[in-house]
């Protein structure tokens, strides 16, 4: 108990509560009457985040620098604490941070999924049964944004655990910054949870003018997302600096494991585009708190007297989608990287067209910057923008197609085996294919005018997210589970998980698309029975519950196997990747000696290993 209270998490949460209370108290002292008014709430939210970071001990080292104390970051387990303690506290080891991210991601996805089941049940038949519209609207927005937070932390989990190992480094380029980027998420998520209770009705996109007018929950929603985005940016700095500055001897750019390439592409987006969602959300907060009309198309009398132009709602959509479209590539590129990483292992063949796969990731990332307008085809954008954005959008299919054919080429004639991670990789391919093929109708202006804001979009989006992130993430967890925990997961439970989840997901996604084609609108609590979609909605609801059930089996498998699973070998998959050449779980220092790359990463069946460990100045053969 004594140890629980000293964890960074508990201290941070107490600090956050104190910070929030201090904000409310000072606002009262300055004459505010209701703490839920925009000004006091924003002030308290900002102080609460500072309170968390100070109390968790995250910034202590940096404050120490001001006193001239430049001790190197602490490595290894903290003395005098039980083994679990470091996982709940500030720790600078990238593997610990990777696990922290990974568990956080599963918790967030689980919470957002549970919320989805609530409003999914409401939608299973026409009529409003048990959710008031305001609560329904809050829940769909919460589902969306918490899933996004969960996916971002899941991506960061893979990046933090794997990138330093794969480039043969001992840690990330900036270990403290790495921990900071993880911990800042926690107060951000707490704010988003607060938003759930204070309610806001814009959905996850937060469009003004409604975003300016809706309930007070909007303030913690915007600020919480801003903080989570900050984490994303700092994480991207770290990953790029690690990939470019920390690679092992002999690891040229085209000898990097392909997952590192996909994280480079991902990080380029996260580094730059994230600023714009952060900016757009802060501007809405400024509009709410100080009345700075960036987005509301209204003018005060004195503004009219000055001859000022009004705010523009469409400006928000441009800023917002400049991030939020590329963001979906932040979600899927790491997943596609996992697919490219795992297929050669389970096909026992080199990755087909390595350079093309690497460049396709970069191409998706770069083209992704030029397509944001396809979310605004019905928003009143000019025709020139609409047609341009249509062409660039359809262009994304080219590098994505390159990846698909390279995956097929990798499997072609391979000696395929089908353990659980491979099943999830193949499941990802099948689902990402439906997600991808249902995309062009939305990317084309003429058809999108009919499909926009229907369940077709919901079906398409969930297929891309499940195929591009959820399935590969699950595959990655099963695949690296022995490396992370030192124990094997239960294969039978893994297969049950897959065979429950996949048909259920197909039902859900195709059911949603069909309901959309029949005229079912999204983000709406009730619908007309005459649409004839009630049967589909029921089927989709049942499928969603089956997916949730399969995820419970997954969670059980992870927890149970961590204690009771079979002890894993160092290299259960006969992988060539550097992290599989050391014992499981990976030792504290990662590698016994500097890593030296001596051949290609995916030459399965080739005579040479990918890496050797240099003992002393010259590389030894072992």
């Amino acid at each position: 108990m004594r140890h629980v209270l000293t964890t960074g998490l508990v201290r941070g949460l107490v600090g956050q509560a104190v910070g929030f209370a201090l904000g409310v108290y000072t606002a009262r002292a300055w004459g505010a009457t209701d703490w839920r008014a925009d000004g006091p709430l924003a002030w308290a939210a900002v102080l609460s985040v500072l309170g968390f970071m100070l109390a968790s001990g995250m910034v202590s080292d940096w404050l120490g620098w001001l006193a001239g104390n430049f001790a190197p970051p602490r490595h290894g387990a903290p003395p005098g604490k039980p083994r679990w303690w470091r996982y709940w506290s500030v720790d600078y080891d990238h593997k610990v941070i990777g696990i922290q991210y990974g568990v956080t991601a599963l918790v967030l996805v689980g919470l957002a999924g549970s919320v989805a089941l609530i409003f999914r049940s409401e939608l299973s038949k026409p009529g409003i049964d048990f959710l008031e519209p305001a609560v329904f609207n809050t829940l769909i927005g919460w589902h969306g944004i918490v899933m996004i937070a969960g996916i971002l932390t899941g991506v960061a989990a893979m990046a933090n655990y794997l990138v330093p190992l794969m480039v043969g480094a001992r840690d990330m380029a900036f270990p403290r910054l790495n921990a900071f980027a993880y911990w800042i998420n926690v107060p951000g998520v707490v704010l988003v949870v607060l938003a759930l209770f204070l309610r806001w009705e814009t959905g996850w996109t937060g469009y003004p003018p409604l975003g300016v007018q809706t309930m007070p929950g909007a303030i913690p929603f915007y600020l919480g997302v801003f903080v989570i985005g900050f984490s994303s940016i700092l994480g991207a700095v770290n990953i790029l600096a690690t990939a470019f500055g920390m690679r092992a001897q002999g690891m040229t750019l085209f000898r990097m494991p392909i997952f590192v390439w996909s994280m480079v592409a991902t990080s380029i987006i996260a580094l730059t585009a994230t600023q714009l969602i952060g900016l757009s959300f802060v501007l809405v907060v400024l509009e709410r708190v100080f009345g700075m009309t960036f987005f509301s198309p209204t003018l005060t009398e004195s503004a009219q007297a000055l001859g000022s132009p009004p705010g523009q709602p469409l400006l928000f959509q441009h800023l917002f989608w400049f991030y939020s479209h590329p963001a979906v590539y932040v979600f899927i590129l790491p997943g596609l990287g996992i697919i490219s990483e795992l297929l050669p292992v389970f096909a026992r063949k080199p990755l087909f067209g390595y350079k093309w796969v690497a460049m396709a990731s970069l191409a998706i990332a770069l083209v992704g910057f030029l397509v944001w307008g396809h979310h605004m085809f019905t928003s009143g954008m000019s025709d020139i923008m609409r047609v341009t954005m249509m062409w660039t959008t359809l262009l994304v299919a080219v590098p994505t197609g390159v990846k698909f054919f390279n995956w097929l080429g990798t499997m072609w004639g391979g000696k395929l085996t089908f353990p659980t991670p491979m099943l999830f990789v193949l499941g990802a391919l099948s689902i990402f294919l439906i997600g991808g093929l249902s995309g062009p109708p939305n990317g084309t202006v003429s058809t999108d005018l009919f499909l926009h804001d229907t369940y077709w979009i919901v079906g398409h989006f969930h297929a891309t997210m499940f195929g591009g992130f959820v399935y590969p993430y699950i595959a990655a967890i099963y695949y690296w589970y022995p490396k992370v925990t030192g124990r094997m997961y239960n294969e039978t439970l893994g297969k049950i998980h897959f065979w429950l989840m996949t048909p259920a997901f197909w039902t859900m996604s195709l059911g949603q698309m069909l309901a959309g084609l029949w005229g079912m609108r999204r983000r709406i609590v009730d619908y007309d029975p005459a649409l004839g979609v009630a049967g589909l909605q029921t089927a989709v609801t049942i499928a969603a519950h089956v997916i949730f059930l399969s995820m419970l089996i997954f969670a059980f498998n992870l927890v149970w196997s961590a204690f009771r699973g079979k002890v894993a070998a160092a290299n259960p998959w006969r992988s060539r990747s550097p992290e599989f050449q050391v014992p499981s779980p990976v030792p504290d220092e990662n590698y016994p000696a500097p890593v030296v790359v001596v051949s290609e990463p995916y030459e399965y069946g080739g005579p040479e290993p990918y890496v050797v460990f240099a003992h002393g100045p010259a590389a030894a053969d072992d």
Partner: protein
Amino acid sequence: MAVLHSVHEHDLPYARRERVNRWGLWLFLISESFMFAGLLAARFYLWGGTRPPLDQTLGLLLTSILLVSSFFMNRAEVAIAHDDRPEFLRSAMLTVVLGTAFLVGVVGWEWGLFLPDGPHLRPTDGAFGAVVYGLTGFHAFHVLTGVLAILAVWHLGRRGHFSARQHWGVEAVAVYWHFVDLVWVFFYPALYLIGQVVAAGH
């Protein structure tokens, strides 16, 4: 974050550490430039070819102060690169003074805190007010963090840290300071010079 990475950091050799730190700093600045570009985009989207009447003398004065401060920041960095500690401390402190003068100018006059009748343009005054206060506010916040960072390296330098061979902290702060100045080089014309002044309606 990456700004203050020190002499004894981690277990990499100093030269390699410095190279990695440089990656981190410049990547962060690229990231920041997207945020400032977004603000500029907002200005052109909302104002188009118009602009509000702003105090031109004040704008020119603020711009000059900030540009001169960059000169002294560079002088501070060169001084520490030649182990000239007194000159480093003097120039760094001058930069702090000039940066603070800039901040006082923005908050006191541009935002009208020191004006008896309050500002001519208020934050609530349509897109004019929103953009002027938004752009100067985001920029002033960065100037403030820059001033604090310079104070931090000044403080450490006074206690004997940094040398000709090892002064990454000073380099990082200097680069950041120049970056914040460079942002103003774009913001100043966008707010004060480009577009037709809209005549007040009364």
